[in-house]
């Protein structure tokens, strides 16, 4: 009996340590290289729809920077993954801006709210259009006040290019 308890304790300890130490160095150069490579033309391996690709593209950039996928379950805010385009093959947090925002709030080991002026290359910017009830767009921040994005596809444009007044913006700094 005592042996079992020791094993359970050890397993729990290992699991907790894994959670706590599951951090790495986000490679911003790799992230930006990916963004530059695929901002104009989507990566066919991730191309699901040309209509709503902004958050999918942003997630790809984060992943290219070394941020590992989390879990497998589509319908919650804790998981973040892409295994393909079909139903249940990628999480909503991967491809929907409002879900990504919720996910970022819940994974403070990875993300931190920051003002745009304090973002670093490879961080995420979310946009909520004037009067909209939820986040409607995502893009990747690139140094010197530039952004790259999909839908519409834009590479290294001025961060406020084509952003109407009254648009709500949130910067998510990757601190992983």
């Amino acid at each position, binding site marked *: 009996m005592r042996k079992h308890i020791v094993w359970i304790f050890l397993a729990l300890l290992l699991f907790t340590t894994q959670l706590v130490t599951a951090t790495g160095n986000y490679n911003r150069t790799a992230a930006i290289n990916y963004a530059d490579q695929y901002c104009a033309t989507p990566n066919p391996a991730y191309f699901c729809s040309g*209509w*709503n690709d902004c958050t999918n593209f942003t997630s790809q950039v984060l992943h290219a920077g070394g941020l590992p996928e989390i879990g497998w379950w589509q319908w919650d805010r804790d998981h973040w993954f892409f295994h393909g385009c079909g139903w249940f093959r990628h999480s909503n947090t991967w491809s929907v801006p409002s879900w990504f925002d919720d996910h970022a709030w819940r994974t*403070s080991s990875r993300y931190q*709210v*920051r*003002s*745009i002026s*304090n973002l670093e290359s490879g961080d995420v910017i979310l*946009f*909520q*259009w*004037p*009067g*909209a*009830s939820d986040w*409607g*767009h995502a893009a990747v921040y690139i140094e010197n006040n530039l952004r790259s*994005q999909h*839908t*519409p596809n*834009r590479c290294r444009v001025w961060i*406020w*290019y*084509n*952003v*109407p*007044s*009254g*648009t*709500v*913006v*949130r*910067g998510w700094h990757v601190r992983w």
Partner: protein
Amino acid sequence: MLGRKISFLLFFAVTLSLLGVGAAAWNKSQEANSIPLSNLTAEQRSVAQYLIEAEWQLGRLSLEERLYRLSEFYINDPRFPLSPEQKRFVQQMLPLLGDTVEPVSERWGQLTFEQAWTKRLIEGYSLLQRMEAGQVNSQEVARMRQKGIEPIETRPPYQSRKEAEELFDFYAFEKNTREGIVCVLHRFGDAKAKSCLVEQGGHWYIAYRKVFPWASLPPTESQK
């Protein structure tokens, strides 16, 4: 039996291809591009110019200044009541708005909504700054979020009218002559919007605006 199967497959294939052709044609018609300003009627042009001017005049101001000048461009029109969701939002912001807004909720319209939205931006930015200065902890932020105040910011004021002009392409105009309303479908930066304007005393006012994500509406030439 085999013949029936083949006929069914043929029927299915023909139906699919017809649907495809139809969809392509529909998309093509929607790709009607933006209408060049020079092709607009005088009234359409004045509406288009007004939308650009309103965006420029308000967008070049600080948020605090904007809050007090919104009534020059937006109006509460009973023909465009707020949605229940918008009303809930205004209600949430009400304690922060003081006597800036119309107190009777039945009279709330686009103007009241814009005032609440601008106040949200002011308070949200203040929270973001306090967060970054380490003046609020995560519990406080969570409390504020429950009250509808989130750490957010918005773009800096426009430096030139051109910045506002670049946001717009005009796709369609619809006029209700009897009621004096003109509704416009237009690009709004990297989003699209439907704006309805009413004329009062020889002056246009925005009485309704709904902004859609880029992908919500059919593609246009500029998107391709």
